[in-house]
């Protein structure tokens, strides 16, 4: 314990090692919005739905041929999609050209 009396400390790191997470690319972007179906992913937070509704209205006015498909997820995202509604969610994703999600309460 000499280091203690001398006021000098050699300390171990409390920070844990972590394996890198395998990364995936995001989906290829659409060239333009005309005639496309946009997925609107709505979670439990109360500002999500009105926010996405504003976007839907704005996009519809600017791109009249755009169509929309909503996915309402009223339980914690990860749990409900990864467990109970995975097939439904995956099928919904297959039916849209791009997705907009609202994040951050």
């Amino acid at each position, binding site marked *: 314990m000499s280091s203690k009396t001398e006021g000098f400390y050699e300390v171990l790191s*409390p920070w844990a090692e972590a394996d*890198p997470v395998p*990364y995936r690319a995001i989906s290829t972007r659409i060239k333009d919005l005309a005639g496309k179906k946009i997925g609107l992913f709505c979670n439990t937070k*109360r500002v999500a739905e009105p926010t996405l509704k504003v976007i839907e209205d704005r996009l519809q006015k600017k791109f009249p041929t755009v169509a929309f498909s909503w996915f309402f997820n009223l339980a914690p995202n990860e749990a409900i999609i990864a467990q109970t509604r995975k097939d439904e969610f995956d099928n919904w994703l297959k039916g849209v050209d791009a997705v907009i999600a609202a994040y951050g309460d």
Partner: protein
Amino acid sequence: MLANYGFVNDAESASRSKGMPGVRVISTKVPCESTVIADIEAGIDKAWNDIIIALTKPLTAEEKNPRAEKTETPARIIFKGSLEEVNRFFYRRGWTDGLPIIPPMEEAVQEMLIGTDLPADYLLGKLQSRLGKATVEKVAINAVMAGALPTYMPVLIAATIDLLESEQGFNGYTTYGFSTGSWSPFWIINGPIRQQLNINSGSGAFSPGNIANATIGRAMGLIIKNIGGVRKGIEDMGVMGNPMKYTMVIAENEEESPWEPLHVEHGYQKEDSTISLSFPQSFLQHYPPGSDATSILQSVIDNITRGMRYTIVFNPQTAKNIAREGFTKEKIKQYITEKKFVPAVQPKNQLGNSGIPGASPSQDLQNKPEMVPLIRDPRVIRIIVGGGPGAFVAHLIGGGATPGKKEIQKIELPKNWEKLVAKYKDLAPIYAKY
């Protein structure tokens, strides 16, 4: 992905941790939890160009092939310096709770490790959010920093396992980290280890001043921070924060309880030692107007607010007064469940969305003005006995596991437990007389 500007770091961290660092996160001024349409429209209009670009701009080379991060292998000896330098180094790294830490030197960590028979490199699991490897040594290092004693290691290991095995989706790390709710880990310890470690279950059990209550909770907070990688304002988006995150540990006062202890309710033997986890948001105390069961329980009912899990701490005398009139823990839970009513609108809208796309809270209120039970499943209520002489009753209200899911963990003891207890047990404050 549209994110309120205060959530951009959180959104990017979540995207990386899920393996998609290229998710295009658009910072907006759309206000959080506010449905004022003019503000939402203004926020969207300001971000409009970014939204269109995010949808249509071709992927960059980096977005097409995101480079994998290297395995993170921090140096074992991370710093050398004076007490002040060590503390400032750790603080700047975000590794402390803001209070000074005990420098985790090799000697101190080795002493901490005598509290377990598990090898130092034993991997308990990977703790969210960054899936940090919770080895026994990392638990011990954080325990030293918190000022814990080696005899707390079995508790800390059990508590870490409890976190690791918590319910997916609404579990320990999630409620601590990925929410604005400022949920705080709350640990209840049962069984013989309460007395072996001098864990306070009596007067001022929730107050500072007992090393076990103080440092077990503090160590778990550091473990969540330094192994789980939960950062305030990034993964931990608690709006208000919560002082209970410094520590929130109590032992149940089994000796003065008229009821079976919490761990026995969960199927353990009275001789077992356990730790239980929940995530209250709020702590309140109230003073029942009488000593009869009806007065006490009505006071409890009056003070229950919205939550998902409830822990009610009855002081020993109040518990005896209720039990004298034939109330078991189960009967109390049932009584509260049957008597506590709230306007129907409350449970549906408290978490945000009304559950009906397009419906607003006011519409719900108009359609459903009746009163409904606040609690539909009495199992969301936990009752323990704790605290000192007096009348006050405490409530811890917030989150926790779904009833029936994991919330309690048996504490496994090392072979030389009795010797260890004898070595450290006499560490207790002796107040001067005046």
